[in-house]
Structures are given as structure tokens and as C-alpha cells.
């Protein structure tokens, strides 16, 4: 069952920490992906804003390479790439659309394109929370966290049907609970953080992210855990702007779930790219290590 890995553009750039921690966690779990050679950008938001055929062509080119390699599945950490690759495959089912996309490509794409999955879903489906718990060496004791999926991970419902209820996914919660953390049910986990509006409409993203941070902070959690490079950037990098917009002081570290899992698996912190987090993760790490030393149990 060969799975091809599609890193996505931000992996090399803004979310290199997400990439490093994802690789680390996958190696720790013995999950082998063959990297996709000569991959190209999935088109992200600008492409499908201009033309669906262009966006599909970009994604289909990647899927076609994977298909020709005989891959059955494509794994990607980034929800935006996930949604583009899946949407493209769905649209290619219509013959007239397929014809228009094939025109843009060098050669006609193969009839059967592989399906794309988020790394989180593959970990959960392949291993499940018991196995993950079994791999934990330094449980995330004493940490009270809330999971935040962002709005793309579980929508649109008909294409992402296998990811759980679009309004109330539970995959990240069960993985983190398996890692020993105290996970709080976060009601705004699928609300939009403002995504790419951070550039043209800075105030809008500030409001939306601000509301998420305010509710999270009110729930008295130690850290917010995200799974999307763009959401993490809006909540972490732009936390001050959001604070200003809400007239509040926010100091809420925003981890990637793979960083948290890496910590639980006992991977060297430096290999998890924690240093890249804007809001310092130190208080969380101190609280965690303190809890580990005293063997404090809830």
C-alpha cells in the first residue's frame, strides 16, 4: 500500500516547523512515505479564485505523477492542499471538465487518480489512539489544551465525508488524549481564522482570530493546537494584532499537533522546530517538565 507524500509549498517556507515535526512523528511511528518527485504547487487559494480548470490542472498534474508511480494514496499535512487535491479528483469525474483540464496538461491524465488524505487522518486510521498511546514516552501531563482544525479540514462535507462530522471532528482530540494531554472540547474548533484575508483585509482576520483566541483564553487552556500552516500563522504570528483588535492581551502559545505528539514521543525538542513559534512556548514546556518531574497525576 504505497503512499506518496506531498509536502506543499509552505512546508519549505513558513511552516518548516510543521514539516520537521510531521516527518519526525511519522518516522517515530514507522510510517514510510515515498516523496512525490517533481511536485508542483497545488494552486492554493489564488488558483481556484481565478479558474477552476487551472486549479484542477495544477493538482491533477501532481496526482497524475503519483498515479504513474502506482501510488494508491497521497498524504499531505496541509488542509488547503488536501482540499484542492480532493476537489480536483472529484471534478475530474465529469468527462467534459476532464477534457478541458487535460488540454492544459502536457499529456492526458490517467483515468484513475489516487485519493488524498491528511497525515493526521492516516495516523489515526492506520494506528488509532491505542497504538499512539503505546508509543508515548513522556506523556503531556499537566497540559490543558484545545484543538483547532480551521474551516477547511472537514469541509465541504460530501468530499471530506470520511474525516468525521463537519461541525464536530474528533480525530485530533483523540490523538492528543492518547498523548496524555487534558483536552478541552473547543466549540470554535472549525470556525474560520480569517485565512488569507490576513493580507488584503487585515482587520477581518484580526477579528476572527481574535474571537478564537479570546474564547480559548477564557477556557483557561495552556495552549491551542492547530493543524494548518495558515491558521497557525494567523493565531501565532498575528496574535498581537488580534489582541489589539479585541482590546485584550493574548499570550497563548499555538502548537502544531505534530509538535505536541513529538514532545510526547520523547523526540528532541530542537527537532520539532519549537523555536519558530512566535508566542514563546516556554511556559508550556516548563509546566510540562515540572509536571513530569513530580510525577503529578491529575
Amino acid at each position, binding site marked *: 500500500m504505497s503512499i506518496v507524500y506531498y509536502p506543499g509549498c509552505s512546508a519549505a517556507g513558513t511552516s518548516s516547523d510543521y514539516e520537521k515535526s510531521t516527518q519526525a512523528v511519522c518516522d517515530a511511528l514507522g510510517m514510510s512515505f515515498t516523496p512525490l518527485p517533481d511536485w508542483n504547487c497545488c494552486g492554493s487559494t489564488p488558483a481556484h479564485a481565478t479558474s477552476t480548470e487551472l486549479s484542477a490542472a495544477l493538482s491533477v498534474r501532481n496526482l497524475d505523477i503519483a498515479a504513474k508511480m502506482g501510488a494508491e494514496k497521497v498524504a499531505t499535512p496541509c488542509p488547503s492542499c488536501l482540499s484542492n487535491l480532493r476537489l480536483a479528483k472529484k471534478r475530474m469525474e465529469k468527462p467534459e471538465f476532464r477534457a478541458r483540464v487535460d488540454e492544459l496538461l502536457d499529456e492526458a491524465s490517467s483515468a484513475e487518480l489516487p485519493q488524498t488524505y491528511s497525515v493526521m487522518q492516516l495516523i489515526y486510521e492506520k494506528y488509532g489512539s491505542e497504538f499512539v498511546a503505546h508509543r508515548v514516552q513522556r506523556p503531556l501531563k499537566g497540559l490543558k489544551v484545545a484543538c483547532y482544525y480551521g474551516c477547511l479540514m472537514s469541509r465541504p462535507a460530501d468530499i471530506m465525508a470520511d474525516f468525521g462530522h463537519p461541525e464536530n471532528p474528533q480525530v485530533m482530540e483523540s490523538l492528543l488524549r492518547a498523548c496524555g494531554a487534558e483536552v478541552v472540547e473547543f466549540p*470554535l474548533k472549525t470556525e474560520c481564522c480569517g485565512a488569507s484575508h490576513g493580507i488584503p483585509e487585515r482587520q477581518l482576520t484580526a477579528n476572527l482570530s481574535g474571537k478564537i483566541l479570546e474564547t480559548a483564553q477564557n*477556557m483557561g487552556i495552556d495552549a491551542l493546537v492547530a493543524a494548518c500552516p495558515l491558521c497557525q500563522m494567523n493565531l501565532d504570528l498575528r496574535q498581537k494584532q488580534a489582541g489589539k483588535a479585541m482590546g485584550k492581551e493574548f499570550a497563548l502559545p499555538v502548537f502544531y499537533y505534530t509538535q505536541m505528539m513529538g514532545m510526547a514521543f520523547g523526540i528532541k525538542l530542537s527537532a520539532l522546530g519549537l523555536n519558530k513559534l512566535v508566542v514563546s512556548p516556554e511556559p508550556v514546556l516548563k509546566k510540562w517538565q515540572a509536571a513530569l518531574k513530580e510525577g503529578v497525576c491529575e
Partner: protein
Amino acid sequence: MRIGVFICHCGSNIGGTVDCAKVAALAATFPDVVYATDPMYTCAEPGQAAIEEAIKNYQLDGVVVASCSPRMHEPTFRRTVERAGLNRYMFEMANIREHVSWIGKDIEANTNKAAELVKMAVAKLRNNKALHAASFDVNKKVLVIGGGVAGIQAALDCAEGGIPVVLVEREATIGGKMAKLDKTFPTVDCSACILGPKMVDVAQSPNITTYAYSEIESISGYVGNFTVTIRKKTTYVDWSKCTGCGACTEKCPSKKTPDAFNEVTGLTTAITIAFPQAIPKKAVINAQHCKKLLTGKCGVCAKTCPTGAINYEMKDELVTETVGAIVAATGYDLVDWTQYEQYGGGRYPDVITSLQYERLLSASGPTGGHIVRPSDGKEPKNVVFIQCVGSRDRSIGRPYCSGFCCMYTAKQAVLTKDHMPDSQSYVFYMDIRANGKLYDEFQRRAVEEYGTEYIRGRVSKIYPDGKGHLIVKGADTLLGQAVEVEADLVVLAVGVEAAKGAARLAEKLRISYDSYGFFMESHVKLKPVETNTAGVYLAGVCQGVKDIPASVAQGSAAAAKVLSLFSKDKLQSDPQISQVDIKRCIACGKCVQTCPFGAIELFDFRGQQKARVIETVCQGCGLCTATCPQGAIQLAHFTDNQILAEVDALCQC
């Protein structure tokens, strides 16, 4: 055989494009036709008189009228020939209006087609036989299923009409959903005050036998002679001894039993009497929470009961009743709203249903009418009502409007203001449906006098803001912007569907039901309380969403139907049913197997098995006649020979 043929002009409707005189002339040449004419209006008084005249003068044995659709005037003309002494089945019609004159202007083709349809009718008539309705006696007793307001009304009206009534109610007390309401719109008078006396009338009426905490096990038989088996579910309390004093309910140690009557807004004891005005006012033990039944240890209620009514070994009991008619009034249940994850999916304690809020409002409710937040027991300041939760929503298969939610929400908003003068109510709605008497005026009062804030828009999400409030995010389409309300309590106006188990009951009643479980009426506009199964009537929401006045009206309507059914000592059965030729039947059982109504049975005839049709159950569909290989069973008036005669008249000459 002497046949008379009448080719109707129907003014110009037929005469306009069919040469009626020519058709009459052609008809005269058909075999056995001894008289043919073309009257101007056959269905009118003179037309019918002409037919009766001709029957006498020409000693006719059969009449063919070529005019409009038999679905329109077949009954009329059958009565006409009957008045003239002919059997009403010695009559056939040819539809030369809807199927000939109105579908084209080609006179030659129309005239030829009209003549051919008349020839077919004559050919069929020559094979007709006189049919006589069998009469059978009626068991003048009615079964009412469901003790809600509709069922109570039906039972009372029937009892009033001198008919013995068997009332079967699934819960421990009659009263249905209305008994759970605090006040009713639009008059805001107390529900128990207007329902209570009716419930007492039921209890005191000598004609009504009530089986509470009982369900219908099986129904067999036919109109006038139903046999019903009722399962009296075990209450572990001997109701003949129980006086309803309630001593046992105080002493019962198991205090954490969810209070089903109060929609689980509070907890109660394992042995309970639903509510003070319950009829019958008898105790029932909830087996899932009674320590004695679960672990064998306890027995406090048996000790405290002054009359020794408690009996832990009590089992279900099956009782049989014979009735002549059945009224189904099984009411409704709320849609499972927990499928809406965006409203918390049932996880937030302060998001409750309108029925639960009704119990909080009610003085006989768990909080004695004092509105509190289930989470912390504090009085809420901002109460948000959300309309259409599980109604008008195609995505969960409930596209219809539940009808009375807008009105009860307005009432609840008024009551909220009454109970808590400084509270503020918000209502998220799409459209306000207030189309009853005094309804819209009442809703305007909720807005103008009681300051309820109506926000036109859907709610996209409810989430706790971490500080004890519930943020209700929605849109305000009138202002064109998103809106958020910080709510202390959220009341969902949950949509309505048929009562649980309605589908299974429908199969026992042999009536059809739609995909939401509502029972199928005979005709949605003209026969709302009748069904396609003779003797089975409907009342209340089980037939479709409606409010209390309509349910009561249908209760009375169903009772009226039952009383008119029982007004005659004997019932006439439709003679257009199947008959078995005993000689030809070899008891292969194919007809018995395919009859949708179980109207055919095998019986022993001089040592041999033969098939026999139960006249009153047969509906005359003819499936058996098409199934029987040797033609031993023939549907009267549509026998093989009659249909073959029509086919041969077309194809062979």
C-alpha cells in the same frame, strides 16, 4: 338481452366534435341494442327521466351511456337505472368527452372512436351480471388509539353518541403532549385547566374503558368487525388497589430516575405518578431504575403502600377487544435535534427544547414554574429562542413546516417576560407563521407589549464563551450583517414528526403512511379524517402537523364519521368483489398469497381445500383474478370474459 344506448351531446362539449346522431345510429346496429338515441344532457333531470322512460317502454335489461368520465357520473347513472328497477351493475359508460371530444377537433376520427368505445361498452355489458351488496352486522363499539387531546375529543364525542369506547394510551396517563404544556396560545389560558376537565370526563364516562400504559399488539378483521389485541404493559402496581395517594413516590430511595413526563428537565423517583392531574392517577414503577427489580434489595414502596398494591412479579397482560371502527390519534414526537452539532448536539445543558422549557414554565414542573438554567440553577437574563430546528430543513429530510412552533415561541416569550420582568428574549426566525384566529394579533403583542426582539435570520453556531454564557452566532438578514447574542438560556423550537412506532402501527392498521411516519388520509383536501381502509379514521397530528384547535376539530370529525358508520344496523359491502367458482378451484393458494388485504382464505369443503373470499375485506383490486391460472376466482364486474369482450370488440371485428 335488450340494451339501450344513450349518446350524450353534453351541450357542445361532445356534440361539438362528435356526430352524436351518427354514433347513435351505429349503436343501433350493435348486437342486442334495441334502442339508441342522443339526448342533449343525459345527466340532467330530463336526461335521467328519459333513461327511466326508455327502460320501461323498451323493457331494457341494460343501459350504456356514452358521455363524460365514469369517475364523474357513474354513481349518478347507476342510481338512475336502479330507480327504474334495473340492477345498478347492468350499466356501462363510454367516456367520449375527456377521452374523445376534448382531445382533438377531427370530427370523423372522433365519431369513429366514439362509436368504437360504445361498441366496447356494449360488448362488456352483454357479459355483466346483476350484483347485490351483501349486508353484515356492525359491532357498534369504537377503539381510539392515543389519549392526546384529539383522542380524548373523539372518545368523548363517541361516548356522548352512546357508543362504547375503548381508549388505549401508551403512557401511564392520558393527556398526551397537551398535558405537558403550561399555557396555550393564543389565549394564554392554562393547558391543564382546559384539558383537565375533559380528562376527568373520560375517566367518569361510563361508555369509555381506558387502557393506559398499554399498546396495540395486533389488529385483524374488517370494518364493523375488528378484533384488537391490546398489550397492558406491566406497571408492577395493581391499579385496582392503587388509590393514587402517592405515599410510595415520597419514600422511594431511587431519586435519580430521569423524569420522562417532564422531558428530563428534572429527576424523580423510580415509582411515580406522572403529574398531579394524571388520569388514571395511578403509580408506575420504572423497571430500569427500581433497586428492587434490578438488584432484588429494597421494597420500600411495597412496605409503605397502604393498600398493598405493589407486585414485583407482575407481567405484561394481553387483552382482546372487538370493535367496529378505529380512530388513530397517536399524535407526534419531536425530531431528534441532537443531530445539529452546530447547536452543541445535546452537549450544552443550557440549550433545551421548547417542550422542556414548557415544563420549566409549568407550576407542576420540576422547578415549580421558576425558570432556571439547568447548568447552574441561576435565573437567566437573556433567553434566545431559535425557530425551525428540524423543520423546513431538506438536509435532514424534514422539509415541511411544523405549523405551531412560531405561535408557542411567541407564547413562551410572553411567559418569560411574565416570570422574569427584567429578562430579554430574542427569537431567531425565518418567517412567522401565525395564520389562526387571533394568532397574528397575539404574536404582535409578544413583540410590542413584551419587547421580544425578533431577529430574522438563521443561527450558524452556539458555543460557550467560557464565562458561563452561550454565544449565539447568526445572521440578521434585515440589517444584512452577522449578529451575536450572549444568551443565558437557548430554547430550540424543535420540529415535529410522527410518534415513534407510528409506522409499525400503520402496518397493523393496514393503512399507508408517508416517509415521515404521518398516516395517509383518503384525500388530503376532501377526506382528511378517513383512510383507504374502511372503518379506520384519523385525528390529530398523526395525520399531519396541526395545532390544538384543528386536532380537537378532527377528533370530533372522526367521531362524527364513526357515529354515521354506526347509524345503520347493517353495513353494505361493495359487491364489486371477487367470487370463487368452487368447482374450478384446486386450492393452489396463489390468490391467498398475493391478496394485499388477506381477503381470501382456504377452507375445507366436503373434504377438499377450496378458496373463499371474505366479502367485507375484499377491496376489488382484481390481483387474484390475474394470478389464478385456471380463472377459478373472478372479480365481479371486471371478469376475464368482460375484459376479453372489450379486447375482442376492438381487435377481432
